[in-house]
């Protein structure tokens, strides 16, 4: 059986301001198995959102393949894309801009069902009520407007809408980053709950490693448009193989002074280079603490080391 999501050698290049294209995503391969949650982490600008957008057909690939339940999105017709979008739904970072302020939340949640002719009238109302309750809101809320809800409640509404068509794949792009710290846990608990209940596949994009560890089964680490490492959750957190993964983990400030202050520091020199002008060889070589000459010339392929797939000559 094919995976729910299969991305092969995906490239997404944008026209650059100074001639050279911005290679936002430059040869990414990954998959998400049925019922699995894959975390996609990496620093700002590494290409996470671009991968997420390509996964739900919001961004056409420059090259490579994106398959949702076996259906190819690259070069697909409008009707195929429309069909795939019902099976792959996206939850964006900002619940405020994701909802139409002039639409009741009942209408917003029911819209995908109505537009695709899946339900109408009484049946639609019942399904909307069930969806609202599923995300922890009350059915009576259906007649209210988004501004009558808090940020956390609005993210629940967005999630209910994404669930309406019972997608095989949920793509969450930083779903809790815009929320108050005290309501993040509510949404994370909800997402974990939904995974267990529906055995949905999820691509979970975040720059917060502790959040990713909490909700994901496997984790992919991106750096400058490429995958540095992919591994099962416990492997990547217990035994990170790529020097970038190690530095990223060391840089997470943990909310425990004893642990945090005892932690060895692995400071990375310098800044992330521009994706319009990425370094040759290993893209991490300008900041890598263990760089050798080979790294400057040869692109390290992803290869299996222990339980990880790692793109590093020295792993």
């Amino acid at each position, binding site marked *: 059986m094919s995976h729910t999501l299969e991305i092969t050698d995906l490239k997404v290049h944008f026209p650059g301001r100074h001639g050279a294209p911005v290679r936002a995503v430059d040869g990414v391969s990954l998959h998400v198995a049925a019922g699995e949650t894959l975390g996609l982490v990496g*620093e700002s600008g590494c290409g996470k959102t671009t991968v997420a957008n390509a996964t739900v057909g919001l961004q056409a690939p420059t090259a490579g393949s994106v398959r949702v339940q076996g259906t190819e999105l690259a070069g697909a017709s409008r009707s195929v894309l429309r069909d795939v979008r019902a099976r792959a739904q996206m939850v964006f970072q900002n619940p405020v801009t994701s909802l139409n302020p002039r639409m009741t939340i009942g209408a917003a949640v029911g819209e995908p069902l109505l537009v695709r002719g899946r339900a109408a009238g009484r049946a639609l109302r019942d399904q909307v009520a069930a969806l609202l309750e599923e995300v922890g809101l009350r059915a009576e809320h259906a007649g209210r407007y988004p501004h009558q809800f808090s940020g956390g409640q609005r993210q629940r509404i967005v999630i209910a809408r994404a669930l309406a068509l019972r997608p095989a794949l949920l793509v969450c792009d930083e779903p809790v980053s815009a929320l*108050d710290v*005290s*309501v993040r*846990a509510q949404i994370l608990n909800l997402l974990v709950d939904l995974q267990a209940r529906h055995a949905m596949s999820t691509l979970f994009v975040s720059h917060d490693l502790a959040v990713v*560890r909490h909700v994901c089964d496997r984790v992919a680490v991106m750096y400058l448009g490429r995958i540095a490492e992919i591994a099962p959750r416990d492997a990547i957190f217990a035994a990170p193989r790529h020097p970038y993964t190690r530095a990223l983990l060391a*840089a997470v400030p943990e*909310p425990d002074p004893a642990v945090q202050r005892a932690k060895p520091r692995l400071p*990375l020199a310098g*800044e992330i280079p521009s994706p319009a002008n990425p370094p040759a060889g290993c893209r991490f070589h300008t900041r890598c603490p263990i760089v050798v000459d080979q790294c400057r010339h040869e692109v390290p392929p992803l290869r299996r080391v222990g339980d990880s797939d790692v793109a590093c000559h020295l792993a």
Partner: protein
Amino acid sequence: MTPAALTVAALSLDLGPTRLVDGIGFSVAPGEVMALVGESGCGKSVTAQAIMRLLPDAIRQTGGQVRLGEEDLTALPERAMQAIRGRRLSMIFQEPQAALDPLDTIGAQIAEALRQPLSRVRAEVRRMLEDVGISDPERRIDQHPFELSGGMCQRVMIATALIARPAVLIADEPTTALDVTIQAQILDLLRRLAIERRTAVVLITHDMGVVADIADRVCVMYAGRIAEAGPVAEIFAAPMHPYTALLLASIPRLSDVPKSPLAVIAGQVPAPGEYGPGCRFANRCPRAEPRCATTTPPLLAAGQGREIACFAPLADRRAP
């Protein structure tokens, strides 16, 4: 005990009829990093603006005092305040690009903090750039902000804030806009400078990880008031305020059991117009008693340098 470098006492800030900040107080010793932590809208930035006497027109200080060493800043004329800002009392912001002048070289902007032309203080500025970890300072000194990354701009702002060796540095979310690997560099830098220069640092953040990393003491704010304050090690090990305890339990950690339920704080933070007469956490608090909704719990000493504002704290360690 060393006298405090900065003391804030009973500070109240109003927006029209709405009290945004309600009688908060804390002090910071030389060389100490004090974190002011709390969720969006709880009043961290307006407190910083009040300390700098840079409040927006709409917001008025209606009570309290800010003292720099022994000196009461509240009563000073604006001219005297201008001589203090950037020299004895400095501030850095979340968005460094917005705070730097795009048309001026970074060297000239740092020199400006010394009220000197760059040519007179070039060597000193270059040393400061080196001190904040900017490589190739001789070239960078003549560049403009747009030629620098976000992390480098933040270092430039720190250099600008510290070159006059202020007694107090207010850092308002200095790493929130940065990536974690860059954040780690900046936090290490702030820590080192606080120790080496004996600068008192007020670090504003909403990230408990940042607090655990570099702060000596912490004030936990909730809805315009201090819920709990004290040494970082003690508060993280045994939070006494239900809000602090729940907040700490709700954060996913690298050490918890994946997919296990996180502690949840029901409801949401009230807006300033919605504050009731009692404890502002009462409507979300699992330990609330009837009086919590009607009476404001005072911030009281609880031993070991701790203070807590709660009628039903988790472990009652108030001195008898």
